[in-house]
């Protein structure tokens, strides 16, 4: 059921993750990215997986939804890692026809799968638990320093919010158009790659048309309500850093230290 939860959708709730300050969530996510690319041995990997499990638990969103919303991307990554296994380097474990599988390549593939899956899940957990306006608030905060280069943080934040809001809408629209063209006999499951690309024209054309129309309608609607970048807008919510936010930062820093220890200091 692909019409279910799509990538980057916000799921309202009141879990611990929902209650965190959006700035802290984004900051923690950036640190988490560093953590996941650092971890490469069995100990740091275990810490990584454990911490992801805790985050998923605290998000209050069922694990099933995580898999559902990322399944296509996960599938692609899995596929590329399977090919990576046959990439010939290091010590051979077994040979089969022209294919050689090495211990090194298996290890690398497993590490990549775990890293990317963790990243996907943690970024999903942020998206699931943070409303779009809160995300844009956080982005705006982090972009403020850029104003010395004459970049307007507010504009960019608005742009990002709008794009995020359009993702699920376009996703649903795509599903509808696919169904409509299928029922007119469009051959979307063709194996031949050229035919396949061609068969998607009846879907891509209306989709582009609708997306551009929607974007221009929105621009007109915003302008007619006097949207501009001259005045300074304030947020409807005041964010204060709470004990919960501090604990989150401590949690993520402890993990960072743990992984650094496992990677560089432990022998």
């Amino acid at each position: 059921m692909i019409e279910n939860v799509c990538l980057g959708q916000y799921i309202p709730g009141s879990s611990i993750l929902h209650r965190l300050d959006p700035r802290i969530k984004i900051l923690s996510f950036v640190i988490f990215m560093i953590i996941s690319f650092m971890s490469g041995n069995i100990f740091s990997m275990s810490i990584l997986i454990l911490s992801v499990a805790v985050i998923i638990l605290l998000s209050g969103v069922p694990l099933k939804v995580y898999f559902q919303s990322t399944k296509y991307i996960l599938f692609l990554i899995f596929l590329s890692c399977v090919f990576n296994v046959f990439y010939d380097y290091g010590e051979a474990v077994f040979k089969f026809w022209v294919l050689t599988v090495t211990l090194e390549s298996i290890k690398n593939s497993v590490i990549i799968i775990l890293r990317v899956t963790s990243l996907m899940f943690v970024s999903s957990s942020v998206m699931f638990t943070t409303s779009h306006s809160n995300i844009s608030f956080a982005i705006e905060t982090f972009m403020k320093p850029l104003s010395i280069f004459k970049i307007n943080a507010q504009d960019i934040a608005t742009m990002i919010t709008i794009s995020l809001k359009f993702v699920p809408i376009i996703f649903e629209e795509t599903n509808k158009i696919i169904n409509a063209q299928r029922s007119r006999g469009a051959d979307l499951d063709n194996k031949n790659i050229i035919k396949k690309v061609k068969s998607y024209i009846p879907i891509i054309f209306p989709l582009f048309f609708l997306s551009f129309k929607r974007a221009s309608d929105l621009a007109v609607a915003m302008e007619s309500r006097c949207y501009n970048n001259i005045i300074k807008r304030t947020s409807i919510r005041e964010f204060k850093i709470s004990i919960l936010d501090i604990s989150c930062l401590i949690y993520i820093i402890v993990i960072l230290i743990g992984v650094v220890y496992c990677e560089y200091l432990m022998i």
Partner: protein
Amino acid sequence: MSALDIKNLSYIYNQGTDLEKIAVNNVNLSINDGEIIGIIGHTGSGKSTFAQMLSGTVKPTAGKIFLYGKDIWKDYKNRKEVYFKVGLVFQYPEKQLFAQTVYEDIAFGPKNQGFSEGETEEKVFEALDFVNIDKKLLNRSPFELSGGEKRRVAIAGIFAMNPGVLILDEPTSGLDPISREKIINNILSYHSKKRGAVIFISHFMEETARISDRVAIMDRGKIKMVDTPENVFYDYKSLKSINLDAPQITKIVSNIHSKGYNINKKIVTVEKGTQEILRLLRE
């Protein structure tokens, strides 16, 4: 034989999550060949979901659909066989127009059905006749047409495939009265020539009453009632409780009836209503 037999059909969105929503709830219905059945129901009652299941584009969560006696998810090996037998005009079908010219857009279905250029052309012209579109428009881009014209081109795209069961999901919504009238007449002219079953979903009680042999009422995913338009609409006060209404003329004769006059209150069309009121005046 019935064209469609629907048995215990259900559809649940986002099953197993907090966002779970039962859109269609255990529906049973038989649709006869040759009949026009109207489906009315408030916004969100599950009409579109129901229509998409009937066309085979959406797989039911539970239940079965038999098309001319054959289970569409079991006895048909090929999805396309179902698509070609059941034509669905989606809600806002003008959104699916894609080709560079009106001709190509209407020809998309018949071409996919495997007809030759010559046969396809015949079918496109026949469909154009049903929807009353000027042949001069054939070489225009569909995106340059007006809303009503776009809608009729999209409907012609389905007519051209010559489906035995035709489903139209709110084909008249968002159009002016004249365009609505035109579309209704297009559907009637298709039906009078091709027969077959027509399932007509609409929020307009007048037109539903006018063209339907039977009317089904959908309320929160269930079919509440299926009967002739007269029997469905005459008790319009109970329809109000499920956010529906009756044609104006039905309410008028019903009000006259409740004032103690001897008038038939099972009337849904303006013609019949006029006759009945004139008869009463003469008495």
